[in-house]
């Protein structure tokens, strides 16, 4: 079965690395990791993702703006705000996000 593609954006390098490691460890997902809004929009435009996970680091307005930009490009792709930092909430968030798609 094809792995689901998840785009994870987080400005905190350590948390981004942890999120990537945990999500890929499950074996069900492939992660593309980005650290800036610009890089996120570029990778999102060029790729085909099942879910976008927005982690920590952006100012709230910038985060909303990024979500709006992503929705303009592909409105059907779920954009989920991640809470917890690679914690026990991660797979529930992913599952809920994929259910929205």
């Amino acid at each position, binding site marked *: 079965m094809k792995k689901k593609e998840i785009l994870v954006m987080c400005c905190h390098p350590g948390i981004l690395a*942890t999120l990537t490691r945990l999500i890929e460890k499950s074996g069900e997902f492939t992660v593309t990791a980005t650290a800036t809004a610009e890089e996120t929009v570029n990778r999102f435009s060029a790729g085909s993702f099942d879910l976008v996970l927005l982690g920590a680091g952006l100012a709230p307005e910038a985060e909303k703006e990024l979500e709006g930009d992503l929705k303009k490009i592909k409105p059907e792709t779920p954009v989920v705000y991640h809470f917890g930092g690679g914690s026990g909430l991660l797979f529930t968030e992913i599952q809920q996000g994929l259910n929205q798609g």
Partner: protein
Amino acid sequence: MAKSVLHKADTRSIADHGWLKSFQTFSFGGNYNPERIQFGALRVLNDDAIDGGTGFGEHPHDNMEIISIVLEGGLKHEDSMHNVAVIEPGEVQVMSAGTGIYHQEYNKEDQVPAKFLQIWLFPNQRNVTPRYQQERYDTTLMPNQFIQILSPDKDDAGVWIYQDAWFHIGKFEAGLQIDHPLKNAADGIYVFVIKGSIRVNGQDLEERDGFGLWEIDSLDITTLTEAEVLLMEVPMNY
């Protein structure tokens, strides 16, 4: 019309890792139950016990208000903000994870288990500057009264967090009736019985049961035995 949800202690998920036994009221880790995601802003209520000499190695958090209440034993805490502390029964600790922190927490004893509640609330602002706070509440604890241990206001009693939530805790004798008004009628309140048996708005609750109520103005609590109770008032829409 009052609404409620009952989470009996024996319906909680159990994560048994040997050194850690965690009773989880809401979905956490590999325990995913779509009917048990959260109660308003309350996202995690884990009732954890860790063996002596063990603990959680360094791990990250972001965008979450993380509250720990130690029930037995003690926890050693160290984080990336250079906070080093021991948390013991009668204390409450909060971390606003915001843009991201790393921390570790270990049982402070080598042989004796530590038991604590790990409570996570969604914040009302994302990406705040991380902060840490710890306060002792048992010095102000009066028998048969709830005291406030958490609020959204830094000048109010207890620790404060980035969410419009209020926590109260109290120890009571049997046979008492207590009326507890909500701060905000639009909030929900989650009752967690730490010890003993109580009746809340007509519902009997035993040790470690959880009972969430909303669209109410106040709680009517009767203590059926000696009891210790934690009340968590949280916004249902946040």
